[in-house]
């Protein structure tokens, strides 16, 4: 792919689009007018920009200028379906332009499984508006009232005389005109949908299968040089000296670059850069500030609270407090307590992060795989001391990220190196760079106490978790306008000292409050330990978002402890959950999952067999009235001799509101479940006293073909009466507790620390014996 540096003015660009362009007219009113803001939703364009969203060209195609990043989940196909539906345009005639700060609107961050649930709404409204405009144009052209016209298949037709019809292409002609969102156009009712709700194939799949797709890693820019970075051998180490003579022999070497502790080599060819990075001798200070991994969770438990990180509505990290927990516990007929531990996880993107930067006197262009184009652009501009408008950021889909891998950090590397050589520079992180310097899913320790009354019902629930931030990206949130370079570890290496925007608590604490309404005395506390990075913070291991942010850990605790209480009551875990009154949509998915899986109703852990293989089943659920509801049932086989756990069969029942593309939703559920089984059974970031040491796939094994489940049954409870809700994360969050509960059922011993490795299973079994 040839890229040019042309950076036309956005208004000029829109004029050049030709045809009908629909934009939002929220200028300066956007977030200030409650009505306008409500119409656009939280993820509509910011108010100070009038941006094009949809353009209908004279060749009869509609183009969506999306501010959402396609992260390899297929969500952009869903957005195109929504646009095609509201336009009454065949799906074959819609096109997509991915984020480019010169061309597309700011839709903040593409994360949290929100592309469809949050970002499709403004697109639906804009497309409905476009259709209304086209009907008006046709009314003029045909000389009939708009009420007598209908749309379909990219044309406007007279209702009572199908012969009289005019295509959108004819209506648009060679003219250019812009339409504004007025709010008068009514989007379709779900019962009118023909394209939304269909399992259309994803637009990107053929390109990926025929290798014509251009990932970030494939982009080439004229005059581009190749670079690799050299990271400190310890998280807190600094450069003492660099011996440039160590790379004098490397052909094609352009420059060795050092900005404080950010070190890189720039070469003409990629393999030269690899050779130079391997050969460069750098003397570093020594640093060994990490805890012994064996004491990780005790260390976390004893860290001080980051009190300034609590939001006003959760002082001291108190998420909910109902009734009187201490009295409830003291009056209980039976009490139990449990401590749960989860490790750090790598995102494990198959392709390490990559970016290209072209830093010139008159402006900067960045090609990257970020999830937050405008926030990252702002961070680059601040880092370079430039106005935002001087930086153009072009998004290209990279390898699947599942959260904050190194995609944003590598941009600073590229910017620093390009600035140093005055040429466009491509930086490709190595596998070790990615595993060593990305933002990991944070480790956690959680403590629960619970009490049962004499009827075996929960009288008290007291849960407290000790956790870090869920975010460390240069996210851009109005009105705070984040976009801070300090969120990036590479900027920290390069000497940037101002901290990044701190808003980790709210992201990491979600879903820790159990879904059951009938818990009379309940206290749920998230003790927040603040942000953490390799270069700063209370524990020098960098944390960030990963598929669900803190939610998988929260649900692991809540749903395992629910299971422990059920076992203590001697009750079937599904019957016990039902007794504690999930909300109606939760109840529906739980019942659907149980029916589909042919759930064996009995108390868990009571009937382990006696052979080498022990079988068990476990359940977990999550959701809320305004979010996706999921129940997952997991059937496991545990080998008592080897300690190996295998998940054999999975049943997921999911209510995510209106389903835009059932096939794509199923693909996401399957993928999330398999990835999370890998994380439950195998995964744990390893570190020594100086640095993370799980730097390749042999030291950080993930699930392989021989280990996947035999089948994943998925029941989608279609609710077209509800808005579309999140898909990528929720089902995956049922996995850790569901599998842990199934292992308990199989062997009759509770394992409260992930991953459920053979060593841990054997230790649990021998502890029991």
């Amino acid at each position: 792919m040839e890229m040019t540096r042309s950076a036309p003015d956005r208004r000029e660009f829109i004029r050049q689009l030709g045809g009908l362009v629909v934009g939002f007219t929220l200028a300066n009113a956007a977030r200030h007018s409650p009505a306008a803001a409500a119409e656009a939703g939280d993820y509509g364009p910011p108010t100070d920009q009038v941006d094009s969203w949809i353009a209908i060209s004279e060749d009869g195609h509609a183009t969506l200028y999306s501010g959402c990043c396609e992260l390899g989940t297929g969500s952009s196909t869903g957005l195109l379906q929504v646009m095609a539906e509201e336009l009454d345009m065949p799906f074959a005639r819609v096109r997509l332009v991915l984020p480019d700060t010169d061309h597309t609107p700011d839709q903040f961050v593409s994360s949290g499984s929100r592309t469809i649930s949050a970002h499709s709404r403004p697109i639906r409204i804009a497309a409905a508006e476009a259709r209304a405009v086209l009907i008006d144009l046709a009314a003029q052209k045909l000389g009939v009232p708009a009420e007598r016209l209908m749309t379909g298949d990219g044309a406007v037709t007279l209702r009572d005389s199908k012969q009289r019809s005019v295509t959108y292409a004819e209506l648009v002609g060679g003219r250019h005109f812009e339409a504004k969102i007025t709010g008068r156009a009514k989007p379709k009712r779900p019962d009118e949908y023909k394209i939304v709700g269909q399992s259309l194939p994803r637009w990107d799949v053929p390109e990926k299968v025929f290798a014509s797709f251009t990932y970030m890693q494939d982009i080439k820019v004229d005059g581009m040089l190749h670079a690799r970075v050299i990271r400190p051998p310890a998280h807190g180490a600094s450069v003492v000296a660099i011996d440039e003579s160590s790379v004098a022999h490397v052909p094609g070497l352009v420059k060795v670059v050092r900005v404080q502790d950010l070190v890189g080599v720039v070469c003409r060819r990629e393999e030269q850069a690899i050779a130079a990075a391997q050969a460069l001798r750098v003397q570093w200070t020594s640093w060994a500030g990490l805890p012994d991994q064996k004491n990780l969770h005790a260390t976390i438990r004893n860290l001080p609270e980051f009190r300034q990180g609590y939001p006003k509505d959760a002082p001291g990290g108190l998420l909910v407090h109902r009734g009187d927990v201490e009295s409830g516990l003291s009056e209980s007929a039976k009490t139990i307590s449990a401590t749960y531990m989860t490790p750090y996880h790598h995102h494990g993107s198959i392709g390490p992060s990559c970016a290209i930067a072209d830093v010139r006197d008159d402006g900067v262009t960045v090609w990257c795989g970020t999830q937050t184009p405008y926030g990252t652009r702002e961070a680059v501009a601040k880092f370079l001391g430039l106005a935002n408008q001087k930086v153009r950021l072009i998004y290209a889909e990279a390898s699947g990220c599942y959260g904050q891998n190194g995609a944003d950090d590598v941009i600073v590397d590229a910017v620093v190196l390009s600035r140093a050589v005055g040429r466009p520079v491509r930086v490709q992180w190595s596998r070790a760079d990615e595993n060593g310097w990305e933002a990991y899913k944070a480790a956690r320790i959680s403590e629960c106490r619970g009490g049962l009354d004499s009827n075996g019902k929960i009288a008290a629930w007291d849960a407290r978790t000790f956790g870090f931030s869920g975010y460390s990206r240069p996210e851009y949130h109005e009105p705070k306008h984040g976009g801070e370079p300090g969120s990036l570890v590479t900027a920290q290496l390069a000497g940037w000292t101002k901290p990044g925007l701190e808003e980790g608590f709210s992201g990491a604490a979600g879903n820790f409050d159990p879904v059951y309404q009938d818990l009379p005395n309940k206290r749920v506390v998230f003790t927040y330990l603040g942000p953490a990075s390799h270069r700063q913070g209370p524990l020098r291991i960098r944390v960030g978002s990963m598929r669900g942010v803190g939610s998988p850990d929260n649900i692991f605790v809540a749903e395992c402890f629910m299971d422990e209480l059920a076992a203590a009551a001697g009750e079937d875990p599904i019957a016990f959950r039902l007794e504690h009154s999930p909300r109606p949509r939760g109840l529906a998915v739980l019942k659907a999952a149980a029916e589909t899986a042919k759930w064996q109703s009995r108390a868990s852990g009571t009937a382990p067999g006696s052979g080498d293989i022990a079988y068990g089943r476990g359940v977990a659920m999550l959701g809320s009235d305004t979010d996706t509801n999921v129940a997952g049932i997991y059937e496991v086989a545990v080998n008592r001799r080897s300690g190996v756990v295998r998940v054999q069969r999975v049943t997921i029942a999911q209510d995510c509101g209106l389903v835009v593309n059932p096939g794509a939703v199923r693909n996401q559920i399957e993928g999330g479940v398999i990835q999370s089984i890998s994380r439950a059974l195998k995964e744990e970031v390893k570190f020594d006293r100086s640095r993370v040491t799980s730097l390749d796939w042999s030291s950080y094994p993930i699930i392989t073909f021989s280990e996947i489940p035999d089948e994943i049954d998925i029941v989608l409870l279609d609710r077209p009466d509800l808005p579309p809700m999140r898909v990528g994360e929720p089902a995956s969050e049922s996995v850790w507790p569901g599998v842990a509960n199934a292992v308990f059922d199989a062997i009759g011993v509770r394992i409260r620390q992930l991953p459920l490795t053979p060593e841990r299973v054997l230790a649990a079994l021998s502890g029991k014996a």
Partner: protein
Amino acid sequence: MATTKTIRVNGKALGVTVDDAAMPLLYVLRNDAGLHGPRFGCGLGQCGACTVHVNGQPVRSCTRPLSAIGPDDEIVTLEGLGTRDHPHALQTAFIAEQAVQCGYCINGMIMQAAALLKKNPRPSVPEIKAALENNLCRCGTHLRIIRAIRRASGV
């Protein structure tokens, strides 16, 4: 010392000038031949994203040095396996099963599976799993990949 060498890629001759004959084949294919099929994943031969065929055998191009490639060796990448006009059965099947999420590993999955089907046109599920055991997918597309390979094999 720069040397010039000619290799055969997807049925065509490709002249390359390199400084270091030990350089991995992957960078020749991506940067000199301009191909997008073989992908950099680990550089260690562990993940399989870089898989190509050399004389019909699946090879990790990230660890295969250019020096090990002879003038008569036939290198085939995903681009050479099939095209939109003349797709390989696996490419058709991967689309039919939507056996892709981010797709970064899919090059390796298809190339490894194509080599399997050549030897064993009707593999069982355990045989498919064994053949792909060293190809990593992080998105969790495994079940669909198996279904696609079964479909391509006519089962």
